[in-house]
């Protein structure tokens, strides 16, 4: 019974998080687009995937990554499946660290966001080279460096917002 209730709570949190990610993507394309710096926007969705996966594991992380990426693809010029592919892998890899690294979760998250952004650029380059070759060269520009910096700066804010919304646990040792 206890396990069933715990599973129900976990599933509710996943559904709530998918809804939060959906709202974030809609806002990202409309209102938040006005807050770009030098034409660069932070990848809030990637940060949310990394944070959530770091607490709840690879399975939920890759599912969240896939569906959020698919939604981003529907609302952008990228080929359908492009962001779904990348975010699935990032969700999977971020979830691998669950229960293995015992540091301040915020510091781990910042490191994961940094490496996640780097990995996203590598994957983007390879996928674009195959499917949209004329865009492959636009991955590694100044925008890429600004995006890394931007992502790292806003990671703590997203982290604490998710904690306030109780979508991630407050205790270090807790898992979803």
């Amino acid at each position, binding site marked *: 019974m206890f396990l069933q209730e715990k599973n129900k709570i976990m599933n509710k949190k996943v559904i709530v998080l998918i809804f939060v990610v959906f709202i974030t993507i809609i806002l990202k394309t409309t209102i938040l687009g006005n807050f770009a710096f030098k034409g660069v926007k932070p*990848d809030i969705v990637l940060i949310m995937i990394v944070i959530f996966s770091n607490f709840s594991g690879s399975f939920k992380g890759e599912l969240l990554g896939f569906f959020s990426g698919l*939604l981003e693809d529907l609302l*952008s010029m990228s080929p359908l*499946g*492009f962001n779904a592919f990348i975010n*699935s892998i990032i969700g999977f890899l971020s979830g691998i660290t669950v229960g293995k690294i015992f540091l301040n979760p915020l510091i781990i998250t910042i490191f994961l966001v940094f490496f996640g952004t780097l990995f996203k650029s590598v994957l983007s380059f390879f996928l674009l080279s195959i499917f*949209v070759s004329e865009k492959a060269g636009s991955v590694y*520009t100044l925008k890429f460096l600004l995006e890394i910096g931007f992502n790292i700066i806003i990671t703590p804010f997203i982290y604490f917002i998710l904690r306030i919304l109780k979508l991630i646990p407050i205790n270090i040792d807790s898992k979803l």
Partner: protein
Amino acid sequence: MFRGGRNIQKYKNSITLLLLLCLSLILMTVNSGRYDISPKKIGTSFFSIFQISASRASNYISDTINSINKLEQLKTEHDILLEKLKIYQRRERDFLELKEENTRLKEQLELTQTSDYKFESARVIAHEPGNIFNSFVIDKGSTKGIEKNMPVIAYQDGFQGLVGKVIEVSMFTSRIIPLIDNSGFVAARLLDTRYEGLVNGDPEIQNSLIMNYVSKNAAKFLNEGDLVISSGLQSIYPEGIYIGRIRGIKVPEWQTSLVINIEPIINFSKLEYLLVLTGEK
């Protein structure tokens, strides 16, 4: 059976990931245009409703806040404008005289009237969520007669400038790829000297254009600030629409043509309203 079940449980994450990645690759392959199925179009049509709603809500809130501030400004401007009106009434009389003279001179040169186009006005409601691709979404779609590859223009600072073209159409929205994106090309011409070339987005400088294949002979006739227009040659874009001004000219020794940097006429960061050309009148 029991051992098999345990193995599946052990590798659940990896199997799920593989399935999701395969699905993503299939979607990308289908979406690349080799097949006539467009799940993206269906999904875009559905989710674009939320984009329109969010955009309208945010526009309503910002318009309301701005209108309160504007009331005070309007009273002051009203008084200033009354004075200006008197000046402009005098100027209008002069303008009408010049216009009539212009019409008479054109008739003498037997110039035909420039063809007008049918257009659909639209507003930008959403931008690209990421930083790699360059596009924006407008609030008109197939229900308003918008079709793929229709050219898009806008008026800014007194100029009718080329914005880009329609690349995706859903029922209520359309996606526009701007001229500053490096994946599209426009057949262009220098307004004064009539040299032709191809313009596309500069991959190195943001919000900038680059014109290639202009003959090296043109170098001595070109100056910074010269206007570039669309040539209309074998192009979806009509002739004579402003593209930009020359910002810099490079004469590479290893190439047979010039490389011209162009500042777009349209400031894409300020772009809000535009016109989609739907056909000739």
